[in-house]
Structures are given as structure tokens and as C-alpha cells.
């Protein structure tokens, strides 16, 4: 564990990445010249004002959207030019998404929602159920596995979504304003859960408006008009002080 902390291994490397949207005749530079490296075990917060490009960056990191130019290595693989089916596989195995508005399927129970990524991975039914229940237990909701999302509170729904992200045990968790739709108290609970997961070794990238939340992260990246600047000094020293 100590050795790993001293020599962190690289998980994500982004170089000179640009993302542009065409709006009518106008070109919107959502991301400009982004270069960023994220290591295994990092807890990284991305903060910035509305419209600064946080979600766009998150979508690129999550392989939901491709960059216009630049390169993006994920776990040693250049993903910006990969085929759609391979991207789906990467999303399935390497990334767990936690959305601001939970994005659970309302027709399915909590357990079925958590099982979904495992279904697409082709895990056999019995194993799938065990893994999904284990993930629900991790977020303290194993007693609610048969409930549908609309029978759960907002905080519980977000915990189900976190369980779904965890179920396939992906190295990276991407959270886009995970506490945005929650009250302060539940937000704190969810943040505690996220920090716990980070302590267990998950790499977590967290988007937030909230400075107090960003402060809890090991690294903070500020984004403004599509450009990033890192705060909080050298991450190695920072991590050491945590």
C-alpha cells in the first residue's frame, strides 16, 4: 500500500484535448487545450461556474462523447478513436457513472437497476444477483432491494445509483454533481460514502459547484471557459497530508 502511494500509477492521461460544438454558424469551444493526468486512487474534484465545461469534460472522460481533437489514454488505451462497441465495453468495465439526477430506470427495482451493468457484461444470473446485493449492502440499502426508485427517498436513490456504479467493480467512478439534487444532510452522507469508496481504492472524479465539497477532495481542478488550472499544490504532498 505504501509503495503504491509513493509511486502512483497512471490511470488517465489527457493531452491537448479540445471539444467544440457547432451551434448554427457559431463554434462553441466547450473544452480548450485540456491536459490532465489522473492516477489510480485519486479523489479529484472538478469545480467551475455553470457553462464552464465540467459536464463536457466528464462525458469525454466517461467515453460518452469523443473529443474534437487531442488524445485521451485510459488505462493505457487511446480511446478517442475507438469503435462504439468497444467504448460501450469500456464504459461497462472501467467506469461507474453517478449522475446528479440519479438516472435510475423507474420500471425496475433497486436490485434490477444495480444488476443492469452486470447483465450487459454477461455475468450469469446467480452471480449477478450476489454481486448486486453485495453492492447494495455496501451503500446500506440491501433491505430495500425490492423497492422501485419512486418508492425511495432522493438520498436512497442516489445510493442505489452508487451501488449500480459499484456493482461491476470498475476502477473509475465518475460523479457529476452527485449531491446536487440532495439536501445538505443527505449530501454529507453521500459524500462520506464517496470518500469511503476512495479509501477502498476507487479512483473518483467528482464534479461540483460546492467549494466545501471540493475541499474534501485530494485534488481540485478548476475549470473556466473550457480551460483548466489545478489548485491545491502538488498532489503527492496533498495526499500525504490527508
Amino acid at each position, binding site marked *: 500500500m505504501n509503495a503504491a502511494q509513493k509511486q502512483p500509477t497512471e490511470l488517465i492521461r489527457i493531452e491537448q484535448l479540445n471539444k467544440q460544438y457547432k451551434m448554427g454558424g457559431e463554434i462553441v469551444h466547450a473544452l480548450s487545450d485540456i491536459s490532465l493526468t489522473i492516477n489510480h486512487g485519486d479523489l479529484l474534484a472538478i469545480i467551475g461556474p455553470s457553462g464552464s465545461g465540467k459536464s463536457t469534460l466528464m462525458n469525454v472522460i466517461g467515453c460518452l462523447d469523443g473529443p474534437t481533437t487531442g488524445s485521451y489514454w485510459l488505462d493505457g488505451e487511446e480511446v478517442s478513436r475507438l469503435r462504439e462497441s468497444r467504448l460501450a465495453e469500456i*464504459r461497462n468495465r472501467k467506469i461507474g457513472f453517478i449522475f446528479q439526477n440519479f438516472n435510475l*430506470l423507474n420500471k425496475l427495482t433497486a436490485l434490477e437497476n444495480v444488476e443492469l451493468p452486470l447483465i*450487459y457484461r454477461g455475468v450469469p444470473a446467480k452471480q449477478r444477483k450476489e454481486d448486486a446485493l453485495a453492492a447494495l449492502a455496501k451503500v446500506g440499502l440491501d433491505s430495500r432491494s425490492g423497492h422501485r426508485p419512486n418508492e425511495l427517498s432522493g438520498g436512497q436513490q442516489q445510493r442505489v445509483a452508487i451501488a449500480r456504479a459499484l456493482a461491476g467493480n470498475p476502477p473509475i467512478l465518475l460523479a457529476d454533481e452527485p449531491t446536487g439534487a440532495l439536501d445538505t444532510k443527505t449530501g454529507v452522507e453521500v459524500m462520506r460514502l464517496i470518500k469511503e469508496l476512495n479509501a477502498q481504492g476507487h479512483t473518483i472524479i467528482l464534479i461540483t459547484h460546492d467549494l466545501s465539497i471540493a475541499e474534501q477532495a485530494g485534488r481540485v481542478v478548476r475549470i473556466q471557459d473550457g480551460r483548466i488550472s489545478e489548485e491545491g499544490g502538488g498532489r503527492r504532498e496533498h495526499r500525504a497530508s490527508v
Partner: protein
Amino acid sequence: MNIGQAFRMAVKSILGNKMRALLTMLGIIIGVTAVIALVSIGQGATKSVTDSVASLGTNSLTVNINGRGSTTTIDYKEAAEFSELEGVEVSAPANRQNATVKFKTTSASVSVVGVTPDYTTAQDYEVSSGRFISQIDLDFLQRIAVIGSGTAEDLFGTDSPIGQRLLINGIGYKIVGVLASKGSSLSGSNDDIVMIPVTNSERLFKSKGVSTVYIKVEDGADMDAVTTELENALYKKFRANEDAYSVFNQADVLETFSSISDTLSIALGGIAGISLLVGGIGIMNIMLVSVTERTREIGIRKAIGAKKKDIMIQFLIESIALSGLGGLLGVGFGVGIALLVSKTTSLGVELSYPIMGLAFGFSVFIGIVFGMFPANKASNLKPIDALRFE
């Protein structure tokens, strides 16, 4: 993701909106119901026709004499000699007339047929009581009669007719036998009949000779060869006048009917095809609406790792499940209607498993064809666009 999983998902989604699913399937249900009901009734009708033709025996031939000049008939002895031809089992000349028969005060209008002893074999009649007409009756012009079961019932009710005297056109005949019931054929009832020796009938109706000869061909003999032989014999007899006679083959009649029923089937198939097509368009319509409604769901599924193929299969299976279930319900309703028709009317109904299989198979096929476009549309959604969709 495997097919079983996709199927469970589809069933869940269909059950989640039963009313809409039912309305979506309605086109297919009506189409399949119509086909199954119509085909069952149509085949029932065809079967009753072909059965009555086949009851005459598929190995029988009928010779009709139309005549040439003054000879419009053939001598019964000459006709009986056809049995000596290769492959012919029996040759039964018959002289059929309509007449009124009377027992005491009851009278009935029947066919009176002058026959030879071979007639029962040639026409597959059986004697249920008494005896049939024999050669001696012919030779001695005995005034005896064998009556059909229908005539027996009309004139005698439940009493035994054997030994009673019957008046045919005012002349008395003694009843010596009663025939077993044979049902109806194309030429009317086979049971409202009275048979007398052909020699008597010539005298009674003052008509010399017979105009019809029923031929029964030996089992396994070549019908075409026998037909040719008969035609040759007749050709000689009528001095090369081919219009004077005709040889009529039951197999030909059956063929004609089966070609009629084939045409009918094709027409029904066309109607079925069109209604299923309309049903398919209905399914496509609803599936497209469903894809739009569920864009967000598709986005979520894609974000957590669903491939294009997975989404495609999910929607395709859903449309197949809809059309297949519609087809199944249609088969059920169709069979129900057919059974109801056969219960409440005199129409015969013939349920055909291949047609049911075909109708079901075709509705599944419709589901595949018309599900393809919506499924493809769903699978091609970009995950990011789908997630952003409100």
C-alpha cells in the same frame, strides 16, 4: 446479454402497459383471427365436397352415353361386358328414372334405378337387411325391389319393409331388401332410392338399354390405362363418334375441386397478408413512439455498457413478442370462432395445424420486419444525446 434476458425484459415492458400492448396487437389479432376462422370454414366446406366425391370411390369411372342418331343408350348386357376388360373389377350398367312410389296411402318421389347384381360393388352400397337383386331376378323379370334407407323411413317408418308390396308408377313390386345409409353426394341423396332389376326397369319405363355404366377398377390398376381401354371399346361401338359417350374419372373431379380450394387458399392468403401488413405497420408505429419515449432509458443503458446490439435486440424482441402474442391470441380467437360456427350452424369446420403454424410464424416474421426500423433507430442513438433528452 442473452436472448432469455432480453425476452424477460420485453415481457416486463409489455405487461407494464397492457392496454397499449393490446391496441398495438389488435391489427395482428384481427388478421390472424380472420385467416384461421375463414380457412377452417373454407377447408371444412372443401372437405365435405371432396369427401362426397371420394365416397363414390377414387377407383371408379363413370361412362355416360349421350347417343348417336337413334341409339341413345347401350344394351345392358353389352355394358356388363366391360368387366372383361383388363383392370376392371365390375361394370354396373344403370338406368335411372324419377318416379313416384307408393305404399298404401303414403307416397314419395324417388330415383328408381334399374341395376344388375354388380351395382352394390360398383357404388359401394351395402344391404342392411334382406338381400340384393340377383341374376335370376333379371333373367325372370322378377318384380322385386331393394329400397334405400331414406325411402324405407319415409314409407314405412320404423316398420320392416321386407315382404311388403310397393307401387312404382302403379305397378306392384315386392321389397326384398333394404340398403344401409350412404349419405348424400353431389347428385343428391343416395338413400332416397329404389332399385329394381334392370330388365324390369326397361319394361316399366319403356326405355331400352342404359345410359350410365359405373365401372369399378381393380385395386392398383392404372386408371388412365383402363380409361383408354374403355374409350377404345366405346369408339368401336359408336363407330368413331367421340361425342356419343364420355368416360368420367372421379380423380379428375377431385383434382378440379382441389384446384378450386387452392385458389381459395391463395385468395385468403392474400387477405391475410394485407391485414398482417397493416398490423405490422401498427406495431412499427407504436414501437417508434416507444423508442422516443424511452430515449432517456436507452441513454442510461448505453452509459452503463449496453452495446448497439443489446439495444437492437431489446427492441426487436419487444416487437416480436408483441406480434407473436398477437398471433397467438389471433389463433385462439380464430379457433374459437370456427368451433362456434361448427356448433351453431350445419357448416363443417376443418382445423388445420399447418395454417395455424403459418399464421403464427408469419406474425412473428412481421414483428421482425417492422420492429427492425424502430430497433435500429433506438440502437443508433448516441449515448450522450439520449441522456440529455428530456
